[in-house]
């Protein structure tokens, strides 16, 4: 088990050369007005590893992902992607880093005026211009087949269920073959069967691509299934980080509370 006090030392050691960690977040702080959401978060994720970030609603889990991908700027602290600090990068330079990252949004965030095929083709059209139209079509079909949505190319996002939208969102996130995959509540709002299917899919993709993944969730079962390590956020800090067993054996009150109510 690793407690909050031990985390900083551990992550400092892991990220010292900046090369080992695919994602290294250090002493990250973020406030919205007078509300402090993140109060010194330090985390690292290595290639091929999946970290689940747990916590109650409003503990800043989604904000953490948006800070990692550069959609929001931290008040202080640093985010390093493959050792490179993203603070102060121009939109174009940040774009180069973002091409190596896939992001599944909480509500999938599919472009509602585009078909399923066009949604998945969107990153390819902008960043794989060397692909011909038929190659792109073939790649989109391949990606949709991976998430079990191959028969829905011409459908609009509004015609899909929540689970199907998340699958398409996942296919879009994988389009550029990212090194880092960020999943924001992949199973939220889904029935247990669909949740299980998404978990299996994430595991299968993990095995296939060996990406560094960060999964934000409050679904303990899902986290246990797909993650190598878990981190529990509480009041803007990492209350505990470790394996599922570490969490279960923890004496920290907020951890026990979270496990009791999950």
């Amino acid at each position, binding site marked *: 088990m690793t407690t909050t006090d031990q985390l900083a030392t551990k992550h400092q050691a892991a990220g010292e050369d900046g090369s080992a960690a695919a994602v290294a977040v250090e002493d990250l702080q973020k406030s919205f007005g007078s509300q402090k959401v993140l109060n010194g978060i330090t985390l690292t994720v290595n290639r091929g590893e999946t970290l689940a970030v747990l916590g109650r609603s409003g503990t800043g889990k989604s904000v953490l992902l*948006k800070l990692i*991908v550069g*959609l929001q700027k931290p008040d202080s602290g640093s985010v390093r992607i493959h050792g490179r600090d993203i603070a102060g990068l121009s*939109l*174009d330079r*940040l*774009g*180069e880093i*973002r*091409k190596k*990252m896939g*992001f599944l*949004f*909480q*509500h999938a*965030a*599919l*472009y*509602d005026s585009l078909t399923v095929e066009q949604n998945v083709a*969107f*990153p390819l059209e*902008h*960043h794989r211009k060397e692909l011909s139209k038929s190659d792109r079509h073939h790649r989109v079909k391949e990606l949709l087949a991976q998430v079990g949505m191959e028969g829905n190319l011409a459908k609009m996002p509004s015609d899909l269920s929540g689970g199907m939208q998340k699958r398409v969102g996942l296919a*879009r996130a994988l389009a550029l073959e990212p090194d880092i995959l960020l999943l924001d509540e992949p199973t939220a709002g889904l029935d247990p069967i669909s949740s299980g299917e998404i978990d299996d899919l994430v595991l299968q993709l993990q095995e296939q691509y060996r990406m560094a993944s960060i999964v934000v969730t409050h679904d303990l079962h899902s986290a246990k299934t797909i993650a190598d390590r878990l981190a529990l956020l509480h009041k803007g800090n990492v209350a505990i980080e470790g394996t599922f067993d570490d969490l279960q054996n923890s004496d920290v009150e907020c951890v026990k509370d979270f496990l009791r109510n999950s």
Partner: protein
Amino acid sequence: MSGRTLAPAAGAFSAISSSWNLVTGFFEWFGDLALFCWRVARATVTPPFEFRELFRQLDEVGSKSLPLVALAGGAIGVVLSLETRYSLTRFGAKSLLPAAIVFSVIHEIGPIITGLVVSGRVGAGIGAELASMKVTEQIDAIEASAVNPYKLLAATRILACTLMLPLLTLAADLCGLVMGWVALTLVEPISFHQFISNGFKGAGFNDFLPPTFKTAVFGVIIGLIACFQGMRTRGGAEGVGRAATSSVVLSSLFVILADVVLVKVIIIFFP
């Protein structure tokens, strides 16, 4: 006793505080707008260019606004013809009627009507569309896909408005003149050829080009305000509604204010 003296003080403090918030909000809005302009300007001139989205927006702003603009231009032409005929007849200057209609339409009525109609139709459309994309995280998804939303969404729409407004103004002018002639000829038959040659007698390019091309500035204003209001939206459906309304209100207001300045500038530089 002390409660009585405290109440007015608290009221005054609250009034000062809300006035202060209003002032800071006003400057914050202009500051954000300036930053937005800078980002869009940089995105517009930096390759790669989003030509496909630009052509889609040219169709959206141009072709789809054409019927409304033509209808508004035609209706104003009829009203102008009827009203001007009545006024000029009273002052014994009926022979100036074609010139009065032509000059009114191409100098002011055509451009301003086009600006206001487009700010209503396109401003509301862009504001609501981008606001809806913002609240459903679609703009974040574009950015997370390493695509610059200022380039893909804002620059293309602003450019489309800028390029299309002068063309739509030509359509409004044409419909205004044709319908003005129709309204006139029904009362007092006159050939279209004669109407146009009387109307344009003494007119030069300075009477025609500057007022038409000033609408490109209206286009910049409409596109910029609508994109800005849409992309800074917060909240759900209420936020989308607010963005659509404020896009129309602010772009119409700024179009009218810009017209005041541009008319003076045109008079100075194109006498």
